[in-house]
Structures are given as structure tokens and as C-alpha cells.
């Protein structure tokens, strides 16, 4: 081992006291790298500016619907003289989108960008956060304090304090007047339209969306009337939630498709006619139909005027009429029509329809069917999106329901099984079922840009018009 003969003094004497005044390689490199890297950053920014490329400053990728505008910052970020900020304004959105107001009684209308947040990547801008809705519906206030919601004024989300669906919550039951026993129809039946054979009806033998074009097992082939009916009759006003519901909702039950094969509307006990009474007519029209039928028949079969009552058929206990009775054609027709109407009003029609007999009236009144097509009036549902599931997995009560008043709409807990606010679950945010904008009030937007302008940029985007009252 070496002996150390160097004292601190000797070592210190070696040092050049002016050393710090001279540059060292380490300091030189540190300086050069600092200046070089900073200069590189500045040059890059200058290059972006000279190339008029503002994408570098973007806070994130645009949504898929706006990807064409990724390089057209000025389309949304409108510059105004004397104003520093160039935030995307509502007016810029309204250039291309009409945003109908949500509710006439709402306390305030949020800015477009506060719900539809851009620069978050290729996302659906309609997929808004629940807090957009709960900022009002978490503690609902309304102009003038008048509420149309009696229960659900403090909703925090689908999984928190969302009330049960209105149809189940009210306890009023199904408003439909058509008598139907689901339980009977879903058991094995001994008679089919083709004769005595055992059949098992399925839900989709009666319930299908209008867009389902498969032939009916026991009914007429679809003629496209369902769609028209769904749009014009059942949904009298345009659906603000779904513009094209042909596969979303079940078509209304139709007698000719779903009932006629088994439930014949026969009216003549002697089976002199192969056809039944027409469906969908009022009693007055049925009466006229019967009159015409029997008048035509007696004109062709005058021998039927002589009626010989059979004693063993008289179960009333009243004295028997003379053995032979000669009737005039009008008398015969009246008698036959009365007999047919007795069958219709008491049995055939009455089996499904609700009939009432006002005092003094010769004909009954038929209650309107009132079959709800859409159970959730403020929300959207899509049967097509759930087509991989069995009907009874949601409508479990259908197999045991015996009363028309039974509401077979599944409850909110049934939906919450799948629609949960966790990963690997179906969407549970508000927008999945509800829509903020009332699209039934949508106004047309007049386009202003050519495709070339959108693709290659526009020197100056037009100044947006002011928002009209009632938009957003």
C-alpha cells in the first residue's frame, strides 16, 4: 500500500485559483444542449406556425363525426376582433346542427361544448356524461316552480335514485281494453288453425317489430302496413327519440295477423256463410254488413222463410209457437240479424273487446283498444339491440299473466342486471335511453360549405349567426 505523503496544503497548491473563470467541457456541453434543445423547440413551433398547422396545439384528437375538421380549427374557434379568447361557441355548432331546446320549463340551457366535449379522441359526442343531466335532475328546479315530475326530481343516475318506470310506478295497470290471457296463449294448445293438432305459440308469433319481414306462422304475410301503422296510428307524433323505430319497438297487435287464424268472427249458427264479420268495424257497420248478408241470402234461398222450430231446442220454458211460421223476408232478416248480433255482442266480439250497452241504444259501444305501443314515453328502447335474448328473460310475467291489466314491462331492476356503471357491462349512462334535445322540434339547417372547403380549408369561415331563442 502506498504511503500518502501529500498534505492538504500540498494538494491545495496545485489548484489554479482562476479555474472557475474558464469554461469546462461539462459546462460548455450543458450550455450547448440547453440552447440547442430550446432552439429546436422554438424552430418546431415556428415551423408549425409557418405551415399554418394548428394541430400541434390541439388538446386531443377530434371526435369521429368531426374528424374532417381536424385541420380546420377556425370552423369552430371563431376569431373576433378585440377578443382574446377563441373558444368554440354555440353559434359555431349551430352552423351545422340545430339543437332544439330540451324543455320549455328548464331553468337554463347549457353550452353545447359543456355536454359534447370535443378533443377527447374518436368518441361519440352524444355519449355525454351523467353529470350533464344530473346538474339539473339531481335537484330539479323549474321556471315558476311548476313540475311535471312528481317523483323523480333527485336523480343521480340510472343506478342511483332513478325511479321505477312510470308504467310500473303508477299501479294503474295496462290501459288496454282488449282482453287477453297471455298464460292461456303460451300453454300448449290442442287445436291449431289447421285442425286438431297440438301447437305451442311463441312470443314472436304475435309480437314482432315492423322491420321483421319473416312470414307469419299463422297469419297474413306482412304487407308493410305495420310500419305505416306504427308511424301514423300508434305514434301519432314523430318520435323525438328514435327517428327510425322499425326494429326498435314491437308493432301493434293486428287481428288479421295474430288472431284471425284461430279466432274466426263467425256469426251464423247454421254456418250458411264461410266468412266472418269484418274486423275493425263499428257495431253500426257490422249491423249493416249483417243486414246485407242476410238480405242477399234470403233473396237466393226463399225456402228458408219457412221456419220450423224444433221443440227440443226450446229451453226457455215459454209456450211453443205454432209448428209452422211463415215470415216475410224483412222479418226473417231482422230475426237472423238479431240472432247473429246476440252471438257477436255476447260472445264473439265480447271475448276480446270491451262492449258497453248505453240505455236506449240498440247497438253496443266498443271501447277503443288503447294498446300502448310505447310504454316509456320519455325514453327510448330498442328491441333489436336485445335480440340475442329470450323474450321471457325480461318479460318473465308473460307466461303466468292472466289479466289484461297486468303490466308485463320489466322493471328497472331487470335492466340494471346488465346496464351497470362498471367495465364489462352494458352502457348505463343517461344518454343510452334519454335524449336531451327534442328532435321533433328540429329545424332544417342550410349547408354553407363545399366539400373542397372542408377538405382543404377556408381562408375565412363565415361569421356565425346568433343563436335563436329556444335552441340548445
Amino acid at each position: 500500500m502506498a504511503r500518502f505523503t501529500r498534505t492538504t496544503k500540498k494538494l491545495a497548491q496545485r489548484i489554479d485559483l482562476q479555474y472557475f473563470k474558464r469554461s469546462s467541457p461539462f459546462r460548455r456541453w450543458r450550455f450547448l444542449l440547453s440552447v440547442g434543445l430550446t432552439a429546436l423547440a422554438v424552430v418546431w413551433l415556428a415551423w408549425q406556425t409557418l405551415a399554418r398547422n394548428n394541430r400541434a396545439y390541439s388538446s386531443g384528437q377530434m371526435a369521429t363525426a368531426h374528424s374532417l375538421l381536424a385541420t380546420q380549427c377556425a370552423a369552430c374557434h371563431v376569431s373576433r376582433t378585440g377578443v382574446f379568447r377563441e373558444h368554440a361557441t354555440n353559434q359555431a355548432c349551430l352552423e351545422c346542427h340545430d339543437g332544439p331546446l330540451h324543455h320549455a320549463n328548464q331553468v337554463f340551457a347549457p353550452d353545447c361544448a359543456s355536454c359534447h366535449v370535443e378533443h377527447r379522441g374518436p368518441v361519440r359526442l352524444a355519449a355525454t356524461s351523467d353529470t350533464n343531466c344530473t346538474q339539473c335532475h339531481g335537484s330539479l328546479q323549474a321556471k315558476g316552480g311548476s313540475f311535471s315530475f312528481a317523483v323523480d326530481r333527485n336523480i343521480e343516475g340510472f343506478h342511483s335514485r332513478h325511479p321505477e318506470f312510470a308504467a310500473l310506478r303508477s299501479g294503474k295497470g295496462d290501459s288496454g281494453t282488449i282482453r287477453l290471457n297471455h298464460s292461456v296463449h303460451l300453454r300448449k294448445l290442442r287445436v291449431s288453425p289447421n285442425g286438431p293438432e297440438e301447437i305451442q305459440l311463441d312470443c314472436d308469433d304475435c309480437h314482432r317489430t315492423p322491420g321483421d319481414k319473416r312470414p307469419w306462422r299463422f297469419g297474413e304475410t306482412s304487407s308493410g302496413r305495420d310500419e305505416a301503422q306504427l308511424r301514423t296510428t300508434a305514434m301519432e307524433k314523430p318520435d323525438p327519440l328514435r327517428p327510425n323505430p322499425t326494429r326498435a319497438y314491437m308493432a301493434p297487435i293486428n287481428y288479421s295477423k295474430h288472431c284471425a287464424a284461430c279466432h274466426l268472427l263467425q256469426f251464423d249458427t247454421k254456418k250458411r256463410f264461410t266468412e266472418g264479420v269484418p274486423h275493425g268495424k263499428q257495431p253500426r257497420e257490422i249491423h249493416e254488413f249483417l243486414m246485407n248478408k242476410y238480405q242477399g241470402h234470403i233473396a237466393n234461398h226463399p225456402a228458408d222463410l219457412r221456419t220450423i222450430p224444433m221443440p227440443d231446442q226450446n229451453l226457455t220454458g215459454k209456450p211453443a209457437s205454432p209448428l209452422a211460421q211463415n215470415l216475410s223476408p224483412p222479418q226473417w232478416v231482422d230475426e237472423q240479424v238479431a240472432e247473429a248480433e246476440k252471438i257477436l255482442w255476447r260472445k264473439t266480439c265480447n271475448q276480446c273487446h270491451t262492449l258497453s250497452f248505453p240505455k236506449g241504444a240498440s247497438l253496443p259501444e266498443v271501447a277503443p283498444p288503447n294498446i300502448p305501443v310505447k310504454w316509456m314515453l320519455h325514453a327510448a328502447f330498442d328491441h333489436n339491440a336485445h335480440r340475442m335474448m329470450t323474450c321471457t328473460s325480461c318479460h318473465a310475467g308473460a307466461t303466468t299473466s292472466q289479466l289484461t291489466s297486468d303490466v308485463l314491462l320489466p322493471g328497472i331492476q331487470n335492466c340494471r342486471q346488465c346496464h351497470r356503471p362498471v367495465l364489462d357491462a352494458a352502457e348505463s349512462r343517461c344518454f343510452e335511453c334519454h335524449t336531451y334535445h327534442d328532435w321533433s322540434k328540429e329545424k332544417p339547417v342550410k349547408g354553407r360549405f363545399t366539400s373542397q372547403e372542408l377538405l382543404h380549408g377556408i381562408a375565412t369561415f363565415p361569421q356565425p349567426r346568433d343563436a335563436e331563442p329556444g335552441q340548445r
Partner: protein
Amino acid sequence: MLIDETHKKWRDFSLVFLLVATAFYCWYPMRPPQGRNGGSAVGIAFGIIGSAFMVFAGLLGARKKFPVWRLGPAQTWMRGHLWLGLLSLPLILFHGAFRFGGTLTTVLMVLLVIVIVSGVFGAVLQHYMPRMMTREVPLETIFEQIDSVRAQLLEEADKSVAAVCGPLGVMAVGSRKLPAGGYSERGGATPAAAAAATPALALTEEDSAPLRSFYLRQMRPHLEKPGAGDHPLADPGKASGIFEELRKRVPPMVQETVEDLEDICEEERQLRRQARLHHWLHGWLLLHIPVSLALLVLGAVHAYKALRF
């Protein structure tokens, strides 16, 4: 800088600040509908505080440029640099809601991560290595003077050997280009003196041959080119054996000269060790400082653009 109990206040403050900021970050998306967002009021607040911490950390360099200014102790600035600079990372992550955003913001996040990681790496080195250097390099000198000291060691060795062996017939140290640091004014050695010195001890050529041969063939090349790490004299074990062998081959009267040469070799090894440790101890600054400057410049541009758009 040693991270010890003197950092307790800064550490506790940073932990409490981080906890409060984290709680705020978890809470605030319940308020604005768009959730966590750098453009929301809370998001901007996170950005401003994080940027302020970064600027403060960056001002340490300016503070060092003006050591006489009454701006508080340099150690306080260094502690603030360490802890507030470290805090800036979570605050900026909260500001961006853990999203990198567009090109500029992605570049900024990458730069910030580089700055923080290199800073933490440097802080760990600065915590452990000074003690290691004190232990392993007792003859430590000023890093910038290492080349100068090495030249003086060579000169000293030349002089010692020439004193017993006579002129060495090698190029005098003074005829070479001097290192940037130059020689000590007070050290006073004339560069060419050693190689041309008159021997103080008159050894015969035969007696001086082993020492002369060893010095000229092994030791002097090692001192001239100290970077060659595979030289036997660069290894303490091998060097000890070589000098032990040399002692057996030289007359007793030059044993002291051999010991001087061994001391010089030991000091040379320590200088090598010091240079290597110094590169570790300060090399990270070549990344940390330039990237920090670029981060501050680009961050200012980002703030301007974000507030405007």
C-alpha cells in the same frame, strides 16, 4: 444534496399538498358536467399551480447565477426545487386528467416525465455518491483541475526519476500543450525542469536501469494516457505487485523514489475514480437542465394557446 431530516418540513408539506390535491382531483368531476378536464376551472387551477412549481424549480439555476442576492439560502432553494419540482408531476397529471391530449401536450408530458425521472435519479445520486466519493477518493480535487493535476503528477514523477537516473531523454512536459486549466501559479514547477534535472544521487547505469526501464516503459505511458483502463498500474492489486517486484530490483537508496512513484500512481487511480464518479454525479444534468428549459418554453406556449382556444 443530502436528503435528511432538514427536509422534513418540505416533505411533510409536499405529502399534505399531494393528499389534498388528490382528494380534490377525485371530488371535482362531480361538479362540472364534462368531468375531469384541463380546461375546467379546477383543471386550470391544477395547471397553474403545477406550472408555478415548475417555474420555481427552474429558478434555481438563476438563483445560482446570483449567489450574493438576498433571496434566501441556496439550500432552501434546493429543497424547494426538489420537492415542489416533484409535486409538479402529479399536479400536471391531474391538470390533464391523465390524458396526453394533442401533439404539444404529449411532448410536454414526455419532457416533464424526463425531467422528473432524471431529477429523481440525480437526487438519489447526490444523496449517496458524495459520501462514497469521500470514502473512495480521499485525494479528491476539483473536477475541472484533474487534467492540470495529472500534468503536475507526470512532472513530479519525471523529476523524481531524473533525480536518481539522470536525464530521461523524453519530451519535456512543458513542451506539450498544457491543459486548459494550466499549471498552478503557486505550484511553481517549471515544466521542463524535471526531465532535464541533474541527478541528486549518482547511480550507475546498471543500477538505475530497472527503475528507468520501468518508468519509461510502464509508468510514464500510463501517466501520459490515463484513460487506458486496462493498464496494469490502473489496477491497485497488480500495481502493488509490480512495485513490490521493482523494490527488489533497485538499490535501497532509491526505495523512497519508488514509494513516491507508487504514491503518484495511487493518486492517478483516485483521479480516474473521481472523474468516473463525477460523470455519474453530474452527467444527468446534461439531460435534466436542457429538457427543463425546453419544457418551460413549450409550457408557456401551451398556456397561451390553451387559454386562447
